[in-house]
């Protein structure tokens, strides 16, 4: 059984930042493996360690700089990686769900995985939709927001728990092949070991263009246009305590006593 794990490098934002047009100024940005995708990789690697899965392949849409993040996924146990990038993707402010799916659909067609595991959402644009849209596009079954996955060797269905709101889980049987979007907490993602990091350098990381995948460059323009970005207005009149930690703690203690706490 082959598992494909679409992973994303997301931008991390400093505590203090400035906005430049429709983006956060690059000076305030870092990069990291998307948190939800980290759990998806771990789930795939555990299935491989359990002898249920034979190969874990990751795919990332990203420029050359994302290779450091892709190596993280390889260091955690993915077997090989595909990076999709193309000049047509340069300068696209917001790669919408339809555009991502057009690219990933071509990768699924080429790889023919039995299972696709990916994060529920990404920490930057937070669409939370790529997995399910991809499943529909490629004709796979799917399950969104999965926080438990049971898969037997050679099974034709996956037993999953989906995490609903309010502390309720839905138990569902899903036919394979399927796309499952993985919720945080499903497992405990491993840190990349030194040995893993060394081995990751030798693993295959293949770059493909839209042409290679047979994807029409016009599809990546998408239907969504980011027109404004700004800091949200505070909805409350927050009283901010100023001063040293001792000063602020004393002011807060006065408030808490006033509210009848610890009396």
């Amino acid at each position, binding site marked *: 059984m082959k598992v494909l794990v679409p992973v994303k490098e997301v931008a991390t934002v400093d*505590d*203090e930042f400035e*906005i430049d047009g*429709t983006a956060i100024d690059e000076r305030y940005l870092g990069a990291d493996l998307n948190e939800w995708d980290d759990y998806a990789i771990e789930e795939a690697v555990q299935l491989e360690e359990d002898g249920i899965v034979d190969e874990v392949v990751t795919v990332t849409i990203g420029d050359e700089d994302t290779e450091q993040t892709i190596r993280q996924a390889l260091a955690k146990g993915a077997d090989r990686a595909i990076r999709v990038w193309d000049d047509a993707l340069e300068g696209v402010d*917001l790669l*919408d*769900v*339809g555009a991502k*799916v057009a690219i990933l659909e071509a990768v699924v067609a080429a790889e023919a995985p039995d299972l696709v595991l990916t994060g529920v959402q990404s920490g*930057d644009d*937070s669409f*939370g*939709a790529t997995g*399910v*849209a991809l499943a*529909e596009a490629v004709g796979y079954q*799917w*399950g*969104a*927001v999965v926080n438990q996955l049971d898969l037997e060797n050679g099974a034709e269905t996956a037993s999953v728990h*989906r*995490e*609903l709101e309010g*502390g*309720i*889980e*839905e*138990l569902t*049987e*899903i036919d394979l092949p*399927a796309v499952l979007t993985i919720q945080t907490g499903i497992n*405990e993602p491993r840190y990349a070991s030194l040995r893993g990091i060394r081995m990751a350098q030798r693993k295959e990381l293949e770059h493909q263009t839209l042409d290679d995948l047979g994807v029409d460059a016009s599809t990546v323009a*998408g*239907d*969504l*246009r*980011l*027109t404004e*970005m700004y*800091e*949200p207005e*505070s*909805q*409350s009149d*927050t*009283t*901010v*305590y100023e001063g040293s*930690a001792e000063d*602020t*703690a*004393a002011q*807060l*203690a006065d*408030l*808490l006593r006033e*509210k*009848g*706490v*610890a009396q």
Partner: protein
Amino acid sequence: MSDVLAVAEHRQGELRDVSREVVTAGSELADETGGDLHVAVISGDVETFADALSLEGVDTIHTVAHGEEFNHDVYTQAITQLADELAPGYVLAPNSVNGLDYAPAVATRLGVPLVTDTVDLATDGETLVATREMYGGKVETTTEVDGDQVVATIRGAEWAPTEAAGDATIEAFDAEIDEDAIGSTVTGFEEVAGGDVDISEADVLVSVGRGIDEEDNLDLVRELAEALDATLSSSRPIVDAGWLPANRQVGQSGKVVTPDVYIAIGISGAVQHVAGMKGSDTIVAINTDPNAPIMDIADYAIHDDLFDVVPALIEQFS
């Protein structure tokens, strides 16, 4: 004159609050376009749900009687067929776990754009302008969406639920559900582990988040909770890491809490967390990041390192 089709949500026989919210969002959009508001209610006791959904602003309710509980294949087929028949300009769904289990598939099947987790929607009749957040709520964005038809999901609690009764026409929609295309089966529901403490009953909660860095540091917050005679709760990452049991989690997927005082320590305030605690009487946030989303709803805030402030606070009560 675009019509709007809004999809209601229910679980275990109860209509969920977000159904009335999606009616409000749909009604506002329909006012802007001059079109009609259609509501779809699928599976379960659709007739009872339809009566409850006959709310101000709703023109027609389409019931699809098929199965008891949510199944994304049934929803995808029914909504796609309704969209084909009604040709609405906008299809609105809740940005709930179930909404995200069918809305992307509906958009893909219809071949139309999708915009999710919106907090505001406006249209001039041509272009939909969606307001969304990015980077965990640190920034808000406006996005223009092209297309004669658009699928949009709305974030819970951003639109006030419509309560006023209306006089909608109720019509049974005879969706042709292809049983062979149903590839998933819901076999049951489970509640997450209960445990001995019910955080939703507590008057004072000391809640800890990712800023605590390491499991051993939880002792510091425990000590504060004891000093304040408060109950310890947490945001999602602490439970994900296995540092506290699931019954301590505050948020959309955990418990909704409404204490007199909620002290958020090292919690940035992701929308899923805020959904679970914004009803608290007094919210105190201790966090180094003055731009953390929790600061938007905090009544009192300290922009400082929790490892300096919490020991000083314990000192105040010892």
